């Protein structure tokens, strides 16, 4: 990122830190997100994702470190940032007792959308959220997926260049989740930078680049394919009849670091897949097993990263 000109950077953080009393929620995060990127911020609950995003939106002052969003300083120019971003918080941000149209009209007033554009933007949100025949419905009566798209629509009525989404798809059914991501791509395709937090691995795969945060620290950063190359070992997928019983035996084999249940089978983290596979088949010969080397998934990577981290700690 070092050679990217500053004007192409949408979000830039240097040693960003947030403490709540003795608790360090975000610890020295340094990061650049170029314009037009879909950047995924991945990590378990409590890792510091929301805290970081709140600091970027200018609603939570950092303890130390600096950051700019759209070229504005997150501490001294937080109000300028607020005109240039769309933020969708983890809690639903809509007024449940207001109708779909009333919610849109409210944010339209807050963002002072020009009179000439107001109607067009409203129609855009309603169409995008698929709420054409629910314009007059109270927001409380809408299902999660609809609320989500409406909340996103309200947050980006003013067509901000940078969009922050804090776990936008938590608690939403898979089909709504997919259409929500299609929407994210559409916005990115139109030139917006999207900064999204998630703890779903399959969503993380959809991002241009990922930052993995754990215990307040950024422990990995890169495109999903690059990150997978960081994986320090190889993975063997084993399919057998009683994977749970086999797990202990397989873990004690030489060259096997770790075994974990994965779907209907087992994933073994091994030194060398080619050497290990025959030994595996020998060990559980009784149940006609299959074993093959696979590319590590993001989940494999993050589990191993987490284990490294906790060993260090």
């Amino acid at each position: 990122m070092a050679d990217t000109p500053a004007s192409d950077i949408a979000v830039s953080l240097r040693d960003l830190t947030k403490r709540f009393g003795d608790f360090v929620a975000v610890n020295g995060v340094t990061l650049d997100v170029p314009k037009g990127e879909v950047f995924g911020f991945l990590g378990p609950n409590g890792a510091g994702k929301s805290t970081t995003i709140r600091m970027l939106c200018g609603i939570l002052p950092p303890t130390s470190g600096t950051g700019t969003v759209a070229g504005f300083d997150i501490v001294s120019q937080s109000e300028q940032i607020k005109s240039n971003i769309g933020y969708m918080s983890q809690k639903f941000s809509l007024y449940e007792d207001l109708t779909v149209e009333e919610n849109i009209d409210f944010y339209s007033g807050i963002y002072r959308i020009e009179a000439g554009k107001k109607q067009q933007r409203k129609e855009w949100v309603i169409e995008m959220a698929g709420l054409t025949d629910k314009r007059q419905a109270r927001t409380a009566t809408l299902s999660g997926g609809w609320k989500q798209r409406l909340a996103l629509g309200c947050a980006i009525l003013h067509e901000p260049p940078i969009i922050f989404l804090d776990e936008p798809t938590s608690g939403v059914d898979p089909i709504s989740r997919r259409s929500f991501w299609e929407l994210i791509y559409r916005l990115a395709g139109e030139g917006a930078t999207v900064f999204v937090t998630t703890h779903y691995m399959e969503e993380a795969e959809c991002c241009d680049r990922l930052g993995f945060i754990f215990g307040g620290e950024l422990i990995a950063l890169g495109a999903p394919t690059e990150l997978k190359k960081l994986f320090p070992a190889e993975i063997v997928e084993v399919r057998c009849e009683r994977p749970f019983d086999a797990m202990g035996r397989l873990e004690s084999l030489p060259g096997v670091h770790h075994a974990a249940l994965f779907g209907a089978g087992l994933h073994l983290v091994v030194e060398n897949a080619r050497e290990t596979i025959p030994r595996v088949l020998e060990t559980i010969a009784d149940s006609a097993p299959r074993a093959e080397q696979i590319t590590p998934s993001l989940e494999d990577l993050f589990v191993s990263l987490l284990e490294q981290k906790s060993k260090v700690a």
Partner: protein
Amino acid sequence: MKLRRVSAIAKKEFLHVIRDWRSLGIGIAIPIVMLFLFGYALTLDVDRVPLIVWDQSSTPASRALISGFTGSRYFSLVGYARSYPEIVRAIDSRDAQIALVVPVDFAAKIAGGRPVAVQAILDGSDSNVATFSLGYAEAVTRTYRDGVTIAAMKRSGLAPPRVGIELKPRVWFNSDMESRNYIFPGLIAIIMMVIAALLTSLTFAREWEVGTMEQLIATPVTGGELILGKLLPYFAIGMFDLMLSVLVGEVFFSIPLRGAVWMVFAASAIFMAGALSLGMLISIVTKSQFLASQIALVVTMLPAFLLSGFIFPIANMPFPIQLFTYVFTARYFVTLLRGIYLKGLGIKLLMGDALLLALFAVAVITLSHVKFRKKIE
């Protein structure tokens, strides 16, 4: 300060109120209930005190004395007793609050021109009623005694005494001494205070609790726009309640309004601004609906009732507490409304209190603006 944003917030806030029956209840139903409840039930006038009589004398003379009591609007005869236990029973059961015992030798002593004692037994558990009825009873007895004396003098050919000091009372502002006329303007003040602070105490806290505030503070909206936008709809409700109160006073209770109606509204507008902002300030500081409404009740309802002079005269309070009453705006507003309603005072005399109210409103709005930060924590 952008008007577009203020009006968007005001409109949204108005929709919240009309869609939430609890807010509507606080805003519209409670004032109506309070007006009628207090208007009809809250009277400090003591009349028709239940009276029981033990007439041991049973003579024309004793009956003349008793008719002096029963003919007065201050007493209402509930029965005759024939023994002390009966009197005790009547007072214990609160059937009677005063008992009159006329002795056997009443007529004889009167006729003989000798002094005679008539006993009055009072229920002191309600000291207010006891004090008033004692005064009435003394007055009735004195009238009877004077009548007897004058008749006796006439009979013996003497002229009634000419010299005598007589007090000629002339009561200003509330010539019928109706306590309702005095209470009603205060009641308007109480209603304004309570609903104003209660309604607005919920607004900011609700947005923090629901999570919509986090969204709002990430937009370019300013604290001033939020505060003003949220004040406007509640101000309108307050003015509507005021109109309702003035009408009820006029139509149902015939409360005399001697001053100008516009002055009632002007004074209330200034007071409303302060009371609404106080609720808002509490909401901003606590960020919790429950806590905010409790605090709003304690800092508005109680002082408005007890320390405003609404019922309990400030002049009768111990000095330190009198000083304390100056802190609460309800005091000034009650004085203002009584001045306009009963005395028909002009602007000059009311300006001081009105200025204090305005000062308070400005101070609280400023403080709300300072206390509201577009940050989490």
